């Protein structure tokens, strides 16, 4: 249908992230229509990561941009649905939280290849730091924006 990043594979990945985040938010006792929107946010997060990764070939940049997109999404949707913003942000970033590199760093360390292990540990730290940066930037930018809009 379209070129490589916008094909069925990305759509399927979107669907898996969507369903996984729906499960996650139900498990933390979120109720009503919000569950659907957190799921959508999780799907957008993972799909944006994949698409940006395809074009930029840089993992950290794609994590950064995907988290920024999804944080803006949750700032908007949370205000529409009268929900605290952090409830949304908590759920939608879960697909990018570095569980995978955490596992591989542990696995390689146990198998005795410390070189690869330290590479994955570094990955884990960098990804967590990037996620933190992106969340912080969107949160401060939003409060700045709201204050400016309040004044005028």
């Amino acid at each position: 249908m379209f070129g490589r990043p916008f094909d069925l594979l990305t759509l399927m990945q979107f669907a898996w992230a969507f369903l996984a985040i729906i499960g996650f938010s139900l498990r933390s006792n979120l109720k009503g229509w919000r569950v659907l929107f957190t799921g959508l946010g999780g799907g957008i997060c993972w799909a944006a990561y994949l698409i940006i990764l395809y074009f930029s070939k840089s993992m950290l940049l794609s994590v950064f941009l995907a988290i920024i997109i999804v944080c803006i999404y949750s700032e908007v949707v949370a205000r529409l649905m009268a929900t605290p913003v952090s409830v949304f942000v908590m759920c939608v970033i879960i697909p990018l939280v570095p569980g995978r590199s955490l596992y591989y760093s542990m696995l390689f360390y146990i198998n005795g290849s410390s070189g690869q292990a330290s590479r994955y540990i570094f990955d884990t730290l960098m990804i967590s730091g990037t996620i933190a940066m992106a969340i912080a930037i969107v949160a401060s930018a939003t409060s700045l924006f709201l204050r400016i809009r309040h004044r005028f």
Partner: protein
Amino acid sequence: MNKINLQECSQLALETGRIILQSGGATNRVELMMRKVCEGFGYDDCESFVTPTGIFFSLSDGEANITTRIKRIENRRIDLGKITQVSQLVNCLQDAKCPIMTHTQSRSKEFLKELQRIDGESPYPMWVTNLCGGATSGFFCLLFGGSWIEFLIAFFIGIIISASLKYISRLPVNNFLLNAIASALIVLLAKTIDTWVPYIRLDNIIIGGIMILVPGLALTNAIRDTMSGDLVSGTARGVEAIIITIAIVAGSGTMLKLWALLGY
């Protein structure tokens, strides 16, 4: 506006703060909500200092009377539904026509009753949360490139982990041990199933299980707390996230090594 007692107002504010903090809300959210409750009942002069494990709260009526309370917060568990409901209720205080509060009786009594209803509201039944844990684990396994058989196994492991997390958390174990035991259990189950079912890759299954335990919530709260200037609780939550991570790694690593020593 009929003014209520100073003691009563601080009681209501503290109860609001306790519910939000116990359900895993951010610190400055708790402070904001407590301030809103006080303003809603006509006391503008309140100060609060909130950390993840306790609330210090002081309320003054603008004259000589000051009341101060301290509340210790124990057994926190994530409950996003309660945070949402309490926030909506508090925002209702400023709004004259609000569907939640009917204004048939005194406002403070109604507010307290509504808070107690939210606090006592039962979460989803256990089979739903277990099934959702299974779905989370299974779909994360697919997301990281698992096949359909691996999906089924990860689904099964997710259900078992969700159920056993509930049972283990009833025992007097701390958060570190809880996560370590759960991640060890994931590896144990995956390895056991691996001996019977041929041609599966364990990596995706174990990662899917670990994604249930990963401290994304603590991480988010730590960042948001630090950014809003609450350095104490930001640091505390950051350390919580690191400790949970270490627990996951330690638990699953120990079990993998033990299994390797057994020689399978």
